[in-house]
């Protein structure tokens, strides 16, 4: 069973619009973190933002923010004022601490295209 699910395999938006990418996950841990990464067309992976489970405040970093719905085990990445350079594949990743080891699970990704 998928532990991290990104239901949108692809998405598109117009330049300047706000974009929302969804991610849901399964965990029984109290402490965990959700990371968002973007994979460029070159294959390079770039860190965008992360949300710790113990923080009820939605995190923000520049044009990126998240909407964290802990009780639903759901988190969305919001990109404001989208630009063509934001095109790429977006991955959410669940990081848990399991008996002293880190367990990391990535979603399958959402390929986003921003049209000029």
């Amino acid at each position, binding site marked *: 069973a998928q532990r991290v699910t990104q239901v949108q395999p692809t998405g598109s938006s117009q330049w300047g619009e706000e974009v929302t990418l969804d991610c849901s996950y399964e965990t029984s841990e109290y402490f965990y*973190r959700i990371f968002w990464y973007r994979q460029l067309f070159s294959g390079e992976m770039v860190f965008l933002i992360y949300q710790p489970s113990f923080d009820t405040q939605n995190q923000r970093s520049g044009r990126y923010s998240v909407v964290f719905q802990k009780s639903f085990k759901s988190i969305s990445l919001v990109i404001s004022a989208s630009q063509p350079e934001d095109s790429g594949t977006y991955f959410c990743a669940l990081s848990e601490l399991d008996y002293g080891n880190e367990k990391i699970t990535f979603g399958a*990704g959402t390929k986003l295209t921003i049209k000029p």
Partner: protein
Amino acid sequence: DMKVTQMPRYLIKRMGENVLLECGQDMSHETMYWYRQDPGLGLQLIYISYDVDSNSEGDIPKGYRVSRKKREHFSLILDSAKTNQTSVYFCASSLYWGVAEQYFGPGTRLTVL
């Protein structure tokens, strides 16, 4: 300039040959990771290393082993490579496990014929 490097970037091997993928980082990060990425899938964790000689299996360790003798270097070894190990392999590092973001290398595209 903080950087994770991977060598080689492209590699073609025959089934049954041994494969060595190298990863380096210049940030003195404690934790390093090896992933593989297959088309349409996210990254799957092969191994994680918490520091020198402190390695732990990830989700798909079968067919792989790792070596970390210096903090800045982490190697992935495929003994007798198989065709289903054809993939893109990514190395990553983070300052501390579980609490910090990961920095990724550019990836190695491995083809096993």
